[in-house]
């Protein structure tokens, strides 16, 4: 039980990552796959953020004089996650644009039918 308590954020983030990977690999609808990409990226972001967590830590901002840095959570993963969220947003926008175009050409969003180019 304490294992679950100590590592709950990591377990949750891996759950999200595995869910995202499952969706991308198994689902045939293009929009579902794009949602899967988004869930995968969210899972990775949660993993990164939980790396910086400290018990009873506070925000890494020197908001009062005399605040010491040892009770603060790590600000580096927070910067990484901000960048990663923005990158994920750009990829999602591009993916949805391509999905609109693909629907216009193929008439369907079923990935099994969007398969003009084979061997």
């Amino acid at each position, binding site marked *: 039980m304490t294992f679950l308590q100590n590592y709950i954020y990591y377990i949750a983030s891996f759950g999200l990552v595995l869910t995202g990977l499952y969706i991308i690999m198994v689902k045939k609808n293009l929009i579902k796959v794009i949602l899967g990409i988004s869930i995968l990226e969210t899972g*990775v972001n949660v993993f990164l953020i939980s790396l910086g967590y400290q018990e009873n830590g506070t925000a890494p901002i020197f908001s009062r004089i005399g605040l010491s840095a040892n009770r603060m959570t790590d600000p580096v993963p927070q910067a990484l996650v901000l960048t990663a969220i923005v*990158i994920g947003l750009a990829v999602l926008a591009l*993916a949805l644009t391509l999905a609109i175009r693909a629907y216009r*050409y193929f008439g369907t969003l079923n990935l099994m039918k969007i398969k003009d180019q084979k061997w």
Partner: protein
Amino acid sequence: MNEIIYFNPVLLIAVPLALAFLSPLLGLISKKSVKYLPVAGFLANTGIAVSLIPRAIEQTIVVRIGGFPPPFCINLVAGPAGILLSFLIAVTGFLVALYSLRYINQDGEEKYHVLYLLLLTGATGVVLTGDIFNLFVFFEILCISSYALVAFFGHKAGIEASVKYLIQGSVGSSLLLLGIGFLYGRTGTLNMAGIALFIQNTSPGEMLIPLFFIITGLGIEAAVFPLNAWLPDAHSSAPASISAVLSGIAIEVGLYAVIRMLFTIFGVTELFPVFMVLGVTTLVIGEMCAFTQQNLKRMLAFSSIGQIGLILFAVSLATSQAVAGGIFQMLSHTAGKALLFLTAGYMILNTGSHDIESFRGIGRRMPLISLGFTAGVFSLVGLPPFMGFASKFSIIRAALSLGNTWVYIMTGFVLTATVIEASYFFRVIQVIYFHNNEKPGLALKVPASSLAPILLLMAVIIIIGIFPGILTDLLHNAAGDIANKIDYIRSVLG
């Protein structure tokens, strides 16, 4: 004047990035002038890179962004390998930008040039950076620009290829970020030299999981064997200039990132046989799939997969000579494959079809373009007066000098794959020159600005093929930069 002006390596990244942001503003004033910006930018980059080569060889240039000391700052490490590859990116960027001046004339051409500048900014950034998250950011800039550029022509094949590429590329990027998270959580630093120092002092077993995630993530862009399903569609549906840049630069930069991870950061010497097998498998499968193709650009795309396998094989032999051979093969593959894709672009425009059979007799109608294509083929296959011979020969010689039976068997596979490569390429040459055309193609005059890069690439391939000694010194320094972990750590952290 006796003092030489030294440029800062940051300019190699800053110039194309600034031009990419200025292009839309310039496009508001006059759409026709945006296409000259990439040409100017990469000409400047070539000059900067050439002026930095002597200085990078004598001592690796470490640029500390923001002025903080190394473990805390994001730093650029412009060593011989980094500057050589950024020189390659700048020259290829310049030549292909020159080619695109007249090749790309659709609506929205200014968007093409913005994306093109961003793609090469990302590539230069990956090659020069010394911080692992900075690698991820530049890698993403590279990948996202290439997803959009593959779909640039907007036709059915391009959209399908871009969708598949995007899905696989996003999975790769997420895995890469996961691996970076593991590394940061374990080592506490994002600086590549800092991580290398930490890993050197701990047991290698616990680094297997981050290694697996990072290599898989980067391997999707580098197109090593099980992860290359996106490549044939993407490179064959993209505009010819973008195919040249993707095959010549993007996948090689991905492979460079893999190599940097393996040698410098993780330093795993026991896993190199695995990568040797992976390289040879990629090579053999790429060449065999290319053999069955009827579509010219798809055939060239599979050939790119094969060449990446060859470079991975060369580098995983782990001697300094072999790594130098691998880097030389990177250079010759870029020159040869770019030449092939650029000439194929106009050949396809002339006949209106991608099929090899439709190029019958085009050797008579477009003599210079066909000559360029033939030179590219001979260089890639590895025939003597061309650059590809020098690079392949140096790889085989490095492989045979190891004296290991297992390596001899792998070299046998490599040479067999070269024979298969020769067979399908020579079939195309036979169709071009020795068959007669039944129907005449469109009379298309190739503009001078598209012909110039083709002639320049031919000249480069022949000159370096005849005098490979020009590059030997530089290649050995670059190989030393990659293979020597201790020197890298010492030059960054002091």
